[in-house]
């Protein structure tokens, strides 16, 4: 089945829909940036976008290539540095949601972005935390985005870079984290939530993706919501904005020409 949109586009759209109007959102590189642009334009005009290099309430005229992109600066409301963006806004609890990528994720939404394999002698050395540990520790809730396969949805992380719910109920409190935890996981196959045991379950599968395929791409026996349904598709307006305005060069969404 060929969809009239790519799964990367669908992910960007659903990233954007996580941002409610009036919320303060901490935006990372990549698809969340596109999602933030969509949200701000369409359903969340009063949302406040924070970028960790110190940009508060950004209104970029083009899609930023990185969290430090100079295009985030003109017409922003306030500029500081990491002390303001993370120390003040994020750590003090003023950020409603943040986005994080993942190379591995487990049932409790814990994230590895550091190494695949043994820490000192890994198969793949990945970028590490960056701001991910900060966002995952401190935002009111986080949304995790990754391309899914079985080696990424693992029973045991090779390295726990960013805490999700750790070992489950009460764990974040026990280690001293002030709040937060994963609300959603958005992949190229489906969207996941967390149940009362703080375990991941499937909320929706993307058009063209079967539950069977999802199960094949999770290392544990993933729970399925009784209300599971097909993921809502992008609207024509969302697609138009992504393609024509926000990523015409396909930097984040891949070659589309």
């Amino acid at each position, binding site marked *: 089945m060929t969809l009239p949109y790519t799964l990367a586009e669908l992910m960007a759209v659903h990233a954007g829909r996580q941002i409610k109007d009036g919320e303060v959102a901490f935006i990372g590189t990549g698809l969340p940036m596109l999602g933030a642009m969509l949200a701000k334009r369409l359903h969340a005009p009063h949302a406040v976008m924070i970028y960790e290099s110190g940009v508060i309430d950004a209104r970029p005229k083009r899609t930023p290539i990185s969290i430090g992109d100079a295009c985030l600066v003109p017409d922003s409301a306030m500029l500081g540095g990491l002390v303001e963006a993370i120390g003040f806004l994020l750590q003090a609890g003023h950020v409603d949601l943040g986005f994080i990528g993942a190379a591995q994720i487990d049932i409790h939404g814990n994230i590895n972005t550091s190494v695949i394999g043994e820490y000192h002698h890994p198969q793949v050395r990945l970028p590490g935390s*960056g701001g991910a540990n900060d966002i995952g520790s401190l935002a009111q809730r986080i949304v995790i985005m990754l391309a899914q396969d079985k080696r990424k949805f693992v029973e045991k992380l090779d390295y726990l870079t960013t805490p999700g719910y750790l070992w489950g109920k009460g764990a974040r409190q026990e280690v001293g984290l002030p709040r937060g935890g994963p609300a959603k996981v958005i992949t190229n196959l489906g969207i996941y939530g967390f149940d009362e045991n703080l375990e991941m379950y499937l909320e929706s599968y993307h058009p063209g993706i079967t539950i069977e395929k999802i199960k094949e791409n999770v290392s544990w026996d993933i729970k399925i919501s009784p209300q599971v349904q097909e993921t809502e598709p992008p609207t024509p307006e969302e697609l138009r904005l992504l393609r024509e305005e926000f990523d015409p060069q396909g930097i984040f969404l891949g070659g589309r020409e």
Partner: protein
Amino acid sequence: MNRIRKVSSKIISEQEAVETFVKDGTRLRSGGIAVRKPFALLNEVVRQRKKDITLLLSGFTEDGDILVGAGVVNKLEGSYFGLEALGLAHNYRRAYEQGIPQKILIEEYSNFGMTMRFMAAAMGLPFMPTKTHLGSDLVKYNVLREKKAHVLEDPFTGEKVMLLPACHADVALVHAQRCDADGNLQVWGQIGDDEWGCRAAKVVVAEVEEVVDESIIRRDPNRTILPGFMVDAIVIAPFGSHPYQCQGYYDLDLEFRKMYASMTKTREGFLQYLEDWIYGVDSHQEYLKKLGSERLERLKAKPYFSEPVNYGY
């Protein structure tokens, strides 16, 4: 401390600055997180084939990747090691995974963790508290420090707090928009953690787009992030952050960054990059010549000016 200097002597070439202040084994803080990276100075550090540098940063991208690939750096304290939207940092991977060109050791923290470590050093404190790192493997693996972090039960509330040790630097390199001849250093746009990173160092070498008359600086002192008496050398390096941006001066050179990401996929490609863009050019000025005036013209920032404010009384 005697702060008297012959002011004119602070402005020196990048060759002299690096020769004088960056020694083998230096603990080197480099500025900028995703913006205003001091490439003119970093390229010169590579050109002078420094060794055994410990690099201290929040977000390492091309800067750290070049220094690691060139064998200049063998220890890192930092948080992020990649090329952002352009993918993984290949030199860094080759060094960590395969020891090419040499094995590197990394002490990892989060971005904010590094910022707070710089802040601790800058404030003359042995640590700063945070509410990050808790429960993660960031504090499980220590490589360079015997004690990398400490969980304290707060004596006031009983809650758990993570103490992170001060990160002192011998030398800080930073790229700024401008300074005066005394080195009073002004930055606008994102600050990242340059304020605290610079202040954490014994010596600061600043590269700037331009040196302006002190009246310009002193008519807007709120923009200064570091007083002149803390700045040891000034290198005039227009486009010194290329291929990164400098607010008000130029945009990023995405084609160049893509070229770097692509060339460095192989060790050979990186060696070619080194030859083309660092060893093969004598200076930052030569580097700019190689880029060509047409390209630089294209990158130049469009005007978008602030309004003057009144500092009178």
